[in-house]
């Protein structure tokens, strides 16, 4: 049996550092919000693609004046300067395509942008135009916040209810608190990592990110509940004199194989989505992956450890 509970000091330090760093990142840089929450336009365009020809063109410089080379990011920005697009952002992506983002969402503006781009390449194609008006983005933001609050509330109530019969040796609400702390821990770290992804890899968070967060909520609690269930069962089985600490540690060990295996299977499918699932669901899965990893970790090293810490503190209070 691995004595996990004894080493809780290290996990507290590890988690503490990660959580504080994440909060700092959130406050200093903040998440990079996508058009879902900010309003604005996202336009993906595809220029003529002839990569193979391009390579030969490089060898035989300028022989074929018809050869087409997709405009670079700077060229596009320069071209669109006259339109005075607010916070224009251009990203080149594979196969001669580019993603344009700007605040403001009117059809006229979008048409003007397309007109300008046609000047580079007559056969430029719009592969995607999304735009979200400000009234919608405000509503989405409100809904997202509501959803997170409601989920946390719903889960907290559920845990308090599920553990209502377990009141030894610590009151049932403390299980709830421990589960919620673990959950907050997972969410905060996921947010922190996405601040970094936004800062350095231009990953924007939209409605799908909120869906991922809420799924992490569900998963994290699911994982914690399984461990707590085992603790509950072992407490009922054990003679009441058995050390609480030992019961918790035993329960963690008994559920360890399950925790790791379940996380592994979920991680396997998530990695499959990240690798093969295409661009649109990639970061959705990355968010889930981060959440699952920390969700598994926290149910063992944070939630269960917290139960023992709380128990110890109460014992001390009693002794004094």
């Amino acid at each position, binding site marked *: 049996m691995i004595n996990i509970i004894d080493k809780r000091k290290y996990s507290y330090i590890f988690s503490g550092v990660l959580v504080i760093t994440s909060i700092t990142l959130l406050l200093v840089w903040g998440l990079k919000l996508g058009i879902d929450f900010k309003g604005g336009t996202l336009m993906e365009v595809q220029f003529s693609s002839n990569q193979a020809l391009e390579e030969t063109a490089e060898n035989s410089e300028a022989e074929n004046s018809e050869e087409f080379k997709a405009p670079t990011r700077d060229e596009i920005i320069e071209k669109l300067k006259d339109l005075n697009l607010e916070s224009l952002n251009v990203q080149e992506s594979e196969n001669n395509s580019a993603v344009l983002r700007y605040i403001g969402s009117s059809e006229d503006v979008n048409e003007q942008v397309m007109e300008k781009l046609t000047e580079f390449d007559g056969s430029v194609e719009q592969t995607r*135009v999304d735009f979200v008006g400000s009234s919608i983005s405000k509503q989405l933001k409100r809904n997202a916040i509501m959803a997170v609050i409601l989920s946390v509330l719903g889960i907290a109530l559920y845990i308090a209810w*599920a553990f209502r019969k377990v009141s030894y040796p610590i009151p049932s609400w403390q299980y709830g608190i421990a589960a919620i702390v673990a959950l907050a821990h997972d969410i905060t770290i996921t947010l922190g990592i996405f601040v970094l992804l936004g800062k350095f890899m231009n990953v924007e968070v939209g409605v*799908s990110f909120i*869906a991922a967060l809420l799924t992490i909520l*569900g998963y994290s609690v699911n994982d914690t509940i399984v461990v707590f269930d085992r603790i509950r069962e072992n407490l009922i089985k054990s003679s009441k004199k058995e050390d609480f600490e030992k019961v918790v540690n035993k329960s963690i060990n008994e559920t360890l194989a399950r925790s790791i295996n379940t996380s592994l*299977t*979920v991680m396997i*499918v998530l990695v*499959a989505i990240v690798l093969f699932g295409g661009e649109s669901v990639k970061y959705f899965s990355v968010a889930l992956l981060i959440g699952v990893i920390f969700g598994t970790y926290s149910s063992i090293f944070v939630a269960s450890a917290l139960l023992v810490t709380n128990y110890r503190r109460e014992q001390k209070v009693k002794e004094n």
Partner: protein
Amino acid sequence: MPISKFWNIIGDMSIQNKLRLKFGAIIVLTILAVLTAYPKTVESIPFLYNFFSKPEINLGLDLQGGYRLEYEVDTSGVDDNKKDDALQAAQDVLERKVNATGTSEALIQTVESDPPRIIVEYPGATSADDLKSKIKETPYLEFKEEKNEEEQQAEIEKYNEMFASSNEEAKNKAQEKLQEIKDGKSFGEVADEVNGDATSGGRVDDLDFVKKDSMLPELNEVIFEKGLADGETYGELVETDYGWNILYKAEERGEGDAREIHIKDISFQKQTAEMYRDYWIYKETGLTGKNLKDTAVVFTSQGLSEPQVQLKFDGEGKDLFAEITKRNVGKRVAIYLDGEIISAPTVQTEITNGEAVITGNFTVDEAKELKRRLNEGALPVPISLVSQQSVGASLGKLSLEQSLKAGVAGLIVVGIFMILYYRFLGLVAAIALFIYAAMMISIFKLSGTLSNWPITLTLSGIAGFILSVGMAVDANVLIFERIKEELKSGRGLESALNEGFRRAWPSIRDGNYSTIITSLILIWMGTGFIKGFAVILVIGVLFSMFTAIVIVKIILNFVAGKWLEKRLWLIANIKQDK
């Protein structure tokens, strides 16, 4: 055979036979699910293939390409109790519009919010321009009547108050220019200045030779009564209803009735409520484009034959129009098209036949075009496009392929993992997982035929599905770990199996509740991406519990027996005495 008898027979069966029946049911279920999910397995048997290949998965926009347009409906001008009607009418009009473009799959729904919105989903389309322009040209037709005296008076006061300061400014400007002339500049010089300066607010007119009494009385009096000399500028500003004028007499000719004076004029405009009469005089009548039944192009019978657009109202519209015309005899009723007055005829008499004509100096083509637009439906309320999402068809196909690949890869690797770790139990779980996948795909396909809630599979839905595969395994992992524990503690195989299922159940249940709670909240929040994900996650969680608990248990009970009891290494490393 009555159902109760059927259950009696089952009740009387031995445990062994019951188990056989259950196992048989699972095999039938599996075969049906596999055939529905992948009809190609029976491609060589045409009648089966035809039967099973009928249901298809309803793919979302992001997987087959297409557009999603969101329109905001401005119901601010409509009475509260009529808002729903107006919204419904607007939705009907859009539906007709969309159908006119030839896609019946387009989905149109209204979203209750403030302001309300109408969402048009248009799958399979390569471009939304056609649809958007069709919707954009949808006329917004409205009939308005004049406000009553009191209301008019209030508007006049409001407007005049609004114009007071700008009028004062115009007057001062005019005074200034007149002063310049008095101070020695010529009229021509000042006129050029005014003309050259677009911001001056003044305008210069050469009125040419005018006859007596052909002008506004204020101007007439100065021009003909004040005895100006040729080349003289009148020394005071002349105020009319329209502004302040500086008058200049160039020359004069003729005598008596033939007397004509050549006048030039610098004027600074006055703004009065009267000038903006059309903007404030009319109020809503409740009669809008939604009450149109039919439109036709007709020609006036008198004089030059001019094209007109004739409107025929439906029952409600007929009554409304009769009331409106009755109370407005001698007054004007304005017909607004897309927020602008196109004609405002004076009502001669009450019209009870529910017909009206729009005359608007149309050419024949214009009249025909308007008729077509109106016939395709006129909106009772203005709408505007507030959000658009689009996915190119090729991108959609790519996403579908990629996510299918991800799903298959995920399933295979999870299956291999389970077999390696849990050996025989894992094999059963892998088979159950396979059945689970086939069942889920069947549900996607059958949801539209068997229920009123067709599931639209989107990219996020596939993500939810794949995630649920991972979670489906969780229940089995919990159970198998328990079974292994029970075996290790020395229980016999059969009781270990039963005990494993029994004791793992609370954890499975509690854990899945939390996922269901969050998913339900997501569905409630529900738009697009999130909803698709959550709906499938909930269905996935429910069915995964079914496969992991019911199906796996039946299979294990059926196949486990003495042979397995002797080979417990197939389940875990357990020391066996024999």
